[in-house]
């Protein structure tokens, strides 16, 4: 697909490799489609009507691992790489270390995704939560992550002895953390530490993946895109500092809260609970900062779909954090742990927050990348509303299901009674999944029609000026 860059050759104007950004976005959205279909297929297992019964390669347990992995490493990672390739050169005024390396990373990453999916379906999954990537693929991932870090840290370092802009704090830390947590989570519990000590490391890994890979890169992108779209600076630099350093201090300590009341020594569990509540307090400052950036111009949420996506994600983020501070309490854990409550929480975080931020970024960038105005703003609105309503419904449904399950378990109801009580919630979950899928299909159609429409350079510059 040829990319029309109205203002010159690839990378000329602002060091952005537009074709690469586009490639990462397309790959990420393809991964999203696979992720939604596998998730929906798995949801049907809970209604006793699985789509592919008796086929070993499409067994529900394996398909579930494809669902989580393709969304984390295919959808989120790909589009975040697109966002980094757009934002870092524009903030630093410098190109990435090497465009060749960028393209190598792009293709290596897609090979990793394909190998992960095929490996899992063939029965070679690694038994580590969020690290199901087969053991033989892990070294390639490590090389890729280190290459990503070097590629982006180079322009950040070269931008001189000046203070870094907020977005670059988050990028720098996230790029350093990601290879470290991948190394820790995929190797230590696999080869060195069994049982409870391994579970402590696994807990750190599960949480660091969200807190030290997805979260910092996500906030970094927001600290770039929100001021750019709003055409006004972030409200308070001092509050940004509190938010970043508080996150950097508290987030790495959280992990063991995934295994509360387990045989892991209790001091580690208490520490994780306290640190989790610490994170939630710190995150509130970031929320206030972004909300205050909007002051007096909340009408922008009506006009600008990218902003609407991003701020809906921010509101979901706050709900997530309040929920997290609450559910991490040992008393609440006795009921909600092991239930669909946690599944609802995970969907709210991974899709409701980071997925929504990604939709905001893609909605902002796509017309500029293909050099054409949106084919249909109306379809984009449908995309927003179907996804928002579907996600909200799914999360509320799963949280409610979790409470029902948790109390029935505590009250020693027979296991089958808890399954029967869950059945209507599981049906509702699949219905909300359909709403989300339909929203994305409309989005894909719109992306395609936009890219295929006749180029209109004037319209683009007008649209860009109006955005």
């Amino acid at each position, binding site marked *: 697909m040829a990319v029309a860059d109205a203002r010159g050759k690839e990378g000329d104007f602002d060091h952005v490799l537009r074709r690469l950004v586009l490639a990462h976005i397309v790959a990420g959205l393809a991964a999203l489609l696979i992720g939604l279909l596998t998730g929906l297929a798995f949801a049907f*297992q809970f*209604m*006793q009507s699985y789509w592919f019964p*008796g086929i070993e390669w499409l*067994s529900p*347990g*394996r398909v579930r*691992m494809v669902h989580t992995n393709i969304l984390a490493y295919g959808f989120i990672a790909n589009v975040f790489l697109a966002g980094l390739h757009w934002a870092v050169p524009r903030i630093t005024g410098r190109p990435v270390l090497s465009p060749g390396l960028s393209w190598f990373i792009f293709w290596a990453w897609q090979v990793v995704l394909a190998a992960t999916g095929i490996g899992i379906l063939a029965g070679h*999954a*690694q*038994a*580590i*939560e969020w690290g199901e990537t087969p053991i033989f693929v892990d070294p390639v991932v490590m090389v890729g992550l280190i290459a990503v870090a070097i590629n982006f840290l180079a322009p950040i370092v070269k931008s001189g002895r000046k*203070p*870094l802009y907020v977005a*670059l704090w988050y990028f*720098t*830390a996230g790029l*350093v953390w990601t290879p470290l*947590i991948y190394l*820790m989570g995929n190797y230590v519990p696999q080869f060195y530490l*069994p*049982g*409870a*000590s*391994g*579970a*402590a490391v*696994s*807990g*750190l890994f599960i949480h660091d993946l969200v807190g030290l890979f997805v979260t910092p890169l996500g906030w970094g992108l927001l600290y770039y895109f929100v001021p750019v779209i709003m055409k006004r600076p972030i409200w308070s630099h001092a509050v940004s*500092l509190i938010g970043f*350093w508080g996150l950097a201090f508290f987030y*790495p*300590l959280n992990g063991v809260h*995934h*295994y509360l*009341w*387990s*045989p892991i*020594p209790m001091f*580690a569990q208490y*520490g994780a609970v306290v640190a989790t509540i610490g994170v939630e307090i710190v995150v509130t400052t970031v929320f206030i900062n972004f909300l205050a950036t909007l002051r007096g111009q909340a009408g922008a949420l009506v006009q600008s779909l990218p902003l609407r996506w991003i701020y809906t994600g921010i509101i979901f983020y706050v709900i997530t954090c309040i929920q997290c501070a609450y559910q991490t309490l040992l008393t609440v*854990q006795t009921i909600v*742990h*092991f239930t669909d409550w*946690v599944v609802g929480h995970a969907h709210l975080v991974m899709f409701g927050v980071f997925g929504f931020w990604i939709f905001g970024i893609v909605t902002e960038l796509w017309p500029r990348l293909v050099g054409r105005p949106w084919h249909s703003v109306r379809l984009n609105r449908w995309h927003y509303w179907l996804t928002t309503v579907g996600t909200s419904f799914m999360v509320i449904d799963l949280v409610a299901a979790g409470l029902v399950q948790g109390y*029935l*378990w505590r009250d*020693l*109801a*027979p*296991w*089958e*009674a808890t*399954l*029967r*009580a869950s*059945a209507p919630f*599981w049906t509702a979950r699949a219905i909300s999944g359909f709403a989300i899928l339909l929203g994305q299909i409309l989005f894909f159609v719109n992306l395609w029609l936009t890219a295929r429409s006749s180029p209109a350079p004037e319209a683009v510059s007008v649209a860009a000026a109006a955005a």
Partner: protein
Amino acid sequence: MNPLERFGTILLVAGLAFFGAAVAVEAWLPYQVLRGLPMQRLDEIARQVPPEFEDLAARYPDAFRRHFGAPTPEAYARALQIGIETYRAEACWHCHSQFVRPVSNEDRRFGAVSYPGEYQNVLQLPQMFGTRRVGPDLIRSAGKHSNDWHVAHFFEPRDVVPSSVMPSFKWFFDPPAAPDGVPQPNARGLAIVAYVQWLGSWAEQPDAPLLPEVTAAPGPAEGAAAAMTPDPAEGAVAAAVPGEAP
């Protein structure tokens, strides 16, 4: 210039030091507490062949002989290895946890509360704690159900537990040799049963099940009605612990 905004500070303090400190407190310290616990190799685990494994050999003699020979410690070790590999490949651990918490009446539902020492073996490398229970916890499974219950359950869970949402694992079975025969468990089928029957075999088991077995459950419609009785939870407690109703 504020040092908190410098590349070097962010790289060294936020990127490395904070991360390292967290790993030290939340992973290295727990390891220091637990490192003295003895670590069991596979041959140590399999030294004693349990009655469930001998029962598998007697119940499925042809399949067992073909895949494992005789029920020796060596064959048991091999079965446990294939069993855990199957458990990982099918991601059983995504829907079944392997630890009993000291809360939420779990010791009455599943059995003794878990303790760190029982996880110090190669079959918990990587650990199989799990974070979700679509199905029940499995760490106290040994002897709870018979081998043929498990075999029937793996073949088609809903034949045994009507409201189950567990996948059926037809590929754990060889097709019947004769046209009118029944499918026999293959190596994976025998091994996964041996593995599940191993879970908790080291812990003291109560003489009677903690909860009444609910295998002949009512049909879906009746079941839904049963679940909707005015106070299912209260009724269940009364049914579960006769004479101890609150």
